[in-house]
């Protein structure tokens, strides 16, 4: 019965084709440094899962942001675990993404015909840093508040348009409730959507072109 259902679905969806194209790809003999992309993807999915779960209780308002996180940490079952994974996962993401980039750079994997994979990768790096920057404000504690004060001030040092950028980032001249909600929106809607899109393109290219082998002396 199960097999017949699977066969029925397979005939219509082409599941075995997807499986063989995605997972039975031919890959050159490479080393553990080549697993950093998959590691990043794994942590990214964890971030998505735990992030979605955090929004069940988190409130992006100066009145309740801090208290709702205290509630998650102290009263909700495994709240400390879910938030802990999200907190540490954020740092792990940045570390993995940077190592992944260094591997690609030093082993020359960004060259023809993989330029677009590299470019989407750079955009993903920026998006990851953007996630870190916007997520840092959300706990609305002293560290979050002053880190964002400093971070947005740095953006304000840009010549000519700096003050304008500063006000756009903060949604006004001061860090306020408006800043918190716009950082929340970017953290929860804008950047995740962008990341999903870019990861889609990035993975499509990896599967379509295949991964590069380790350069030899002749290269």
């Amino acid at each position, binding site marked *: 019965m199960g097999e017949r259902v699977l066969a029925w679905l397979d005939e219509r969806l082409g599941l075995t084709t997807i499986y063989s194209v995605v997972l039975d790809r031919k890959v050159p003999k490479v080393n553990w440094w080549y697993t950093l992309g998959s590691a990043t993807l794994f942590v990214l999915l964890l971030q998505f899962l735990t992030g979605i779960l955090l929004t069940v209780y988190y*409130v992006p308002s100066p009145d309740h942001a801090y208290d*709702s996180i205290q509630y998650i940490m102290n009263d909700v079952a495994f709240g400390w675990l879910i938030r802990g994974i999200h907190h540490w996962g954020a740092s792990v993401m940045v570390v993995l993404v940077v190592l992944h980039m260094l591997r690609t750079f030093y082993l020359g994997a960004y060259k023809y015909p993989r330029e677009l994979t590299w470019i989407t990768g750079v955009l993903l790096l920026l998006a990851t840093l953007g996630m870190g920057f916007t997520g840092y404000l959300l706990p609305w504690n002293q560290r979050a508040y002053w880190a964002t004060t400093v971070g947005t001030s740095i953006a304000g040092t840009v010549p000519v348009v700096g003050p304008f950028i500063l006000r756009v980032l903060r949604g006004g001249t001061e860090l306020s409730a408006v800043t918190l909600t716009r950082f929340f929106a970017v953290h929860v809607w804008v950047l995740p959507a962008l990341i999903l899109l870019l990861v889609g393109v990035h993975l499509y290219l990896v599967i379509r072109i295949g991964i590069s082998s380790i350069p030899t002396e002749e290269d």
Partner: protein
Amino acid sequence: MTKKPRYRLSRREFVNSVLVFLGSLMGGVIGLPVIGYVISPALKRQRSDEWVSLGPLESYPLDEPTPFTFTRTKVYGWERTTNSYVVYVLRRVGEQVIAMSNVCTHLGCRVKWREDLQQFACPCHDGFFDIEGNVISGPPPRPLDRYETKIEDGILFIHFVGG
């Protein structure tokens, strides 16, 4: 005697079983806490069990349901929430008294005493109750809920049990 051929695990089978084992382990470690995380507030009960004073019985008119409002504050998650409750007090001759909740027994809307109809009316789905809270017409499955009452030194109390 034929020797049973020793089963050799192929590299692929080994990798597959390790993957399945580690995958289930990770899925379990993350998946099971998620269930607790999502449902835990639903399992917390804040029970209230107290006698609420409704003032002197004498102040309630005879044979006319009179609303009494009181509030109770509870902590829900990160916020203190004050809910108000309305009790309809129907005083009969002697020390007979009925204290009814204004929560419709159908789907929880609030009923109102309509003096012109001499009935409690629920605005949501046209449920009607008589002066003692019995269903006259409409969808309510049972009469209005009643509070246990007691009178001490002429003061009316209701037994307020919540949670």
